[in-house]
């Protein structure tokens, strides 16, 4: 059930997305500057944060309890109420949202970080698959996505040109709006289609780059949001759902959990126009699939940030999508915005946050 807007996003920041940053897997160097940024925007200090929640992964970092290192960035003295999810920071934000709804905190900060360059990501991501029958084959994430892309091409749901157009538009959007994107610039679908396949039918530009990066979002209870932000992004619906881990039992051209989450979050009412949607699509065809599943027409501005295709820090890219959608409202560019985060193969898990400019 979506609730009335009891909670709002009041600030967002992301670190530069870099192919290989100088920081350690603990994330501290990426987090300290963006924590300072959201504190400056809101006038808050660390001691005002009632609940902290992070999303990151030990598999990505190659060390146990890697998220504990990141707590240095909090400055956790006096002791802070803190939690962690082995998920994208978007799910950490969900936990923080619940924490505020329960009345345990008034202001919460969620962050996600990942140093994707530390690992062989295509092998690490194989370990998120069914551990009995899929992971022992070490299917790489790019190839698994390619299986889905081909299904869509052969079913006439999209073409390689459609996919290249998503990539080209994303880079142009990033160039216009997102100085912290990793890939930015002007190109055309025709130019991208001359590139070789990395996993036929996927080209490099169809696949989100591996990025080192972090993101942070501060949310506040209704009675505090107004003092922290002139135009908070009120969360009117926040839901997540998941599809089966048995890949071959799924319809590669449907995203049922995305649809379910969207419906539960209150999307789909005709009179509720969506101005901006930030969709977490790690592969170009998945943006098309999500647009189709969520019923977004040409009137919805999709991924003005450039999306994950222009910067994909693992465990922060989903939170960044929600942050960018919220930012469009905070900046007065949108009245209603949707932030989406995904995880797993073929958009297996989907989270939808619906936000408006009016409480």
């Amino acid at each position, binding site marked *: 059930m979506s609730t009335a807007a009891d909670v709002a996003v009041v600030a967002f920041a992301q670190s530069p997305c870099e192919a290989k940053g100088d920081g350690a897997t603990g994330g501290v160097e990426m987090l300290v500057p963006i924590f300072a940024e959201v504190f400056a925007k809101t006038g808050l200090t660390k001691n005002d944060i009632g609940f902290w929640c992070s999303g990151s992964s030990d598999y990505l970092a190659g060390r146990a309890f890697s998220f504990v290192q990141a707590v*240095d960035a909090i400055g956790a003295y006096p002791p802070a109420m803190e939690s962690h999810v082995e998920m994208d920071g978007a799910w950490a934000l969900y936990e923080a949202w619940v924490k505020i709804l329960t009345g345990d905190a008034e202001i919460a900060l969620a962050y996600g970080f990942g140093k994707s360059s530390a690992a062989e990501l295509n092998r690490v991501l194989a370990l998120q698959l069914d551990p009995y029958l899929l992971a022992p084959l070490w299917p790489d994430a790019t190839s698994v996505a390619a*299986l889905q892309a081909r299904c869509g091409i052969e079913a006439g749901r999209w073409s390689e040109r459609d996919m290249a157009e998503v990539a080209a538009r994303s880079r142009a959007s990033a160039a216009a709006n997102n100085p912290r994107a990793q890939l930015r610039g002007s190109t055309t679908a025709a130019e991208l289609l001359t590139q070789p396949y990395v996993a036929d039918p996927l080209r490099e530009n169809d696949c989100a780059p591996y990025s080192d990066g972090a993101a942070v979002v501060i949310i506040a209870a209704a009675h505090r949001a107004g003092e922290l932000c002139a135009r908070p992004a009120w969360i009117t619906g926040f839901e997540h759902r998941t599809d089966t881990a048995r890949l071959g039992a799924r319809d590669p051209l449907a995203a049922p959990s995305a649809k379910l989450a969207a419906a539960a979050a209150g999307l789909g009412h005709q009179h509720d126009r969506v101005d901006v949607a930030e969709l977490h699509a790690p592969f170009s065809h998945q943006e098309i699939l999500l647009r189709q599943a969520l019923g977004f027409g040409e009137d919805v501005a999709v991924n003005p940030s450039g999306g994950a295709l222009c910067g994909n820090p693992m465990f922060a890219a989903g939170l960044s999508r929600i942050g960018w959608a919220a930012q469009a409202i905070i900046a007065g560019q949108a009245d209603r915005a949707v932030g989406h985060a995904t995880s797993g193969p073929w958009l297996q898990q989907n989270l939808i946050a619906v936000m408006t400019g009016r409480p």
Partner: protein
Amino acid sequence: MDEPADGPLRAPLEIGFDYTRSLGPVLGRFLTGLRDRRILGARASDGTWHVPPFEYDPVTHQPPADFAEVGPKGTVITWAWVPSPLAGQPLDRPFAWALILLDGAGTALLHAVDVITPHAIRTGIRVRPRWSTDRVGSIRDIECFEIVGQNGHMEPTLTHDHEVTMLAAPIQLRYEHTAAPGEAIYLRGLAEGRLLGQRCPVCANVYIPARGTCPTDGVPMAETVELAGTGTVTTFCVVNVPYPGQRVQPPYVAAAVLLDGADLAFQQLILGCDASEVHMGMRVRAVWRDRSEWTTSAFNISHFEPSGEPDAPYESYARHL
């Protein structure tokens, strides 16, 4: 670790571990079948044959009641080309991943198809399993699939008298670990035989190893501080338990050593006396390995040993306990 003097310190890190998983009744039956060259499906409440079988029906959430053999031939419903296989994948030469709908099945199985070029595979092509010689009850008991029509014969199914109940899944991962800039100051100091900490600009505490950010205040450290290799044991434990890879014969002492001038103790090995002689307040000093062995590593300090000085008064380290 070798890098430019001011660049990040990076080093390879390899991790290996085995997951040992119990299979349960459904996956155990499926993998027992693969060991015997049979591919089993389970019928769902809507009549669809799931291959691999489900553990719980997607609609009714009941365990499967009906199992039957499917295939072994099947049809490719989608595929992706792998020009450069990764470690651990079924084939070490270019191949195709495919979702394969086995004859009689309503859901698809993911596996590799052994074709030498992407032109040799297409959606709709017929394939059959190539069985591994050593089958143990694993999805890898199918080495890969191959195009029907290639040379080869159908191998008979077998019967064993024991069921497969466990799966060993070895994991090998490679990383390039980057030391945080603060850690790098500490490690580069060690390479010069120096102990470098950092002072927080807010609380003025000195942390060693240098750590870049103050864990109390969450702000970047401002000042690097060199400390002498002498300090005080604040607390300790005697290690009596042997474990694989242990470098020192138990019993020995792992102690929290508060270096003079530091505000945080760090763990060090205490040698040079009997384990029973180590006590709180004991004064100790660092024993460095031979200079020729120094690298950007904590390995440079062999251990700490008693310095012979009188014990430090309890008040001098009480707040660090």
